[in-house]
C-alpha cells in the first residue's frame, strides 16, 4: 500500500524548497474538462504531467521502454477515470503518481521474479534492476534526487530509497542493508522527518 494522496494545503507564505513545476499548478477545471471528454484538455494535461510522471516511472523501472509503456497505460487510465478524480484527495499529479508507483512496483516485482527464476544463482545481482544502456538510465546514487533527498545521511536515504522507489518490504530492506529491523525503521523515521521539514512549508 502507498499513500501519495493528500489534500492540497494552504500556502502559508513561506518559500517552498522545491521549484514550482507545471504539474503543481494544474487548474482543477482542467481535470473536469478531461472528465468531460475534451481531448484538447487531455492533451494539455499530458503536456503538464508527462515529464514528471515519466521521470518517476523511469526512476523506479530504470528502463525507458517499460517506462513509456507504463506512462501510456496510466494516461489511458486517467482518460477513462478522470471523472472519479477527487480534488479533495490530492493534486492531479499526486493521483497520477500513485498510479505510476503502484504499477511500476508491480512491474518491478514481476521482473525480479522472472529474473530469479531464470538465474537463481545470481539472485544477488538480480536485486538491482537492469539499467538501460541508452543513456537515460542511471546508477543508484548518481545525481538521482534533488537537493533535499541527497542531503539526507546516506543510511537514511538508502532505506527510504529502497522502500519508496524499490518497493521493498521492511524485512527486505533490513536484509538488503544487513541491519536489524528496528534500525531500519528508525532510519526511515528520522529520514522522513527531515524530508518533511525540508520539503513541506512550515506553518
Amino acid at each position, binding site marked *: 500500500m*502507498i499513500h501519495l494522496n493528500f489534500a492540497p494545503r494552504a500556502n502559508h507564505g513561506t518559500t517552498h524548497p522545491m521549484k514550482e513545476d507545471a504539474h503543481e499548478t494544474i487548474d482543477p477545471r482542467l481535470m473536469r474538462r478531461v472528465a468531460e471528454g475534451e481531448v484538447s484538455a487531455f492533451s494539455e494535461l499530458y503536456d503538464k504531467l508527462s515529464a514528471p510522471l515519466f521521470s518517476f516511472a*523511469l526512476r523506479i523501472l530504470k528502463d525507458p521502454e517499460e517506462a513509456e509503456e507504463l506512462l501510456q497505460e496510466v494516461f*489511458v487510465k486517467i482518460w477513462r477515470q478522470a471523472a472519479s478524480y477527487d480534488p479533495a484527495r490530492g*493534486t492531479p499529479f499526486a493521483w497520477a503518481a500513485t498510479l505510476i508507483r503502484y504499477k511500476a512496483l508491480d512491474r518491478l516485482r514481476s521482473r525480479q521474479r522472472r529474473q530469479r527464476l531464470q538465474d537463481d544463482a545470481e539472485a544477488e545481482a538480480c536485486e538491482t534492476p537492469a539499467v538501460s544502456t541508452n543513456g537515460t538510465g542511471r546508477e543508484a546514487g548518481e545525481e538521482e534526487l534533488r537537493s533535499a533527498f541527497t542531503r539526507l545521511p546516506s543510511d537514511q536515504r538508502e532505506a527510504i530509497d529502497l522502500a519508496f522507489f524499490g518497493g521493498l518490504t521492511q524485512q527486505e530492506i533490513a536484509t538488503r542493508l544487513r541491519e536489524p529491523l528496528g534500525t531500519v525503521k528508525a532510519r526511515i523515521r528520522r529520514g*522522513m522527518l527531515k524530508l518533511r521539514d525540508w520539503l513541506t512549508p512550515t506553518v
Partner: protein
Amino acid sequence: MIDEATIERASLYVLGLLEDGEAARFATAIRSDPELAEFVEDLQRTTVALAASVPQHTPPAALKQRIMNRIRAEQPAPAGRSRAFEYLGWAAALVLLCASAALYHDRARLQSANAAFVLRDNLSGVEIVRLRSQLAQSPSAGAVAVWDSQRQQGVLDISGLPPARADQDYQLWLIDPAYSNPVSGGLVRALAEASGRQPFAPAKPVHGVTKLAVSLERHGGVEKAEGPMVLISQ
C-alpha cells in the same frame, strides 16, 4: 504531541511498509486524531515531493501521439460527455422521480421483477438499477444507478456507505455476459453527506448489462475485481 512510535508508524504507513492489518488500524487512528491526520498529510506531501524530485526526463514525442491516437480510438470515446451528462443529469432526475412514483404505486410490479433492472423507463435505453448492501455492518447502505446504455454513461447515487480507508477505493463494476470479467465503471466515492450523484462510464463498451456492483478495492482501483462486493444489484 505525537510520540516517537507513532511517528515511526506514520513514516512506514506513507511509504506503504505497514502490513495490511496494521495499516488498517493506523488508518482508523488517523481518522480519529486530527493532529495525527495533519502529520500524516505532511508526510504524504513529502512522498509526492519525492516522486517529483527525480531528475526530469522528457518522454519521446511519438509517445504522446500514440496515446492521443489510443484515446481517440477508444469506443465509446468519452468525447462529448459534457453535453450528454448535462442532458443525462436532467434525465436522471426525471427518471428517478418517475421511478420513485412508479415504485410507490406499483409494488406488485417491483415484487415480480427478478431481473436486475427493476424498472425500465420510457426513455429509451435508460434503465434504473438498485444496488443493495452486502455489508453486515451497514445493511442500510445502497445505491441507485441510472444507466444509459445508448450513451454508455450513467449516474450513481450512493447512500449510507462508510468512507473507504485511505488506502482503498470503492469501484463500480458492470457485469456483461459478453465479457468474462466485470467491466470497470471507475472509482466511486462514499460521500460524507447523505448521498451524491456521481457520473460513471464503463472502461469498454457494454451492451448487455445484467448487474451492477460496487467493490472495495486497493487505492486507485484495479483492472479486475479483487476485493469484497459491498453493493450489488438484485
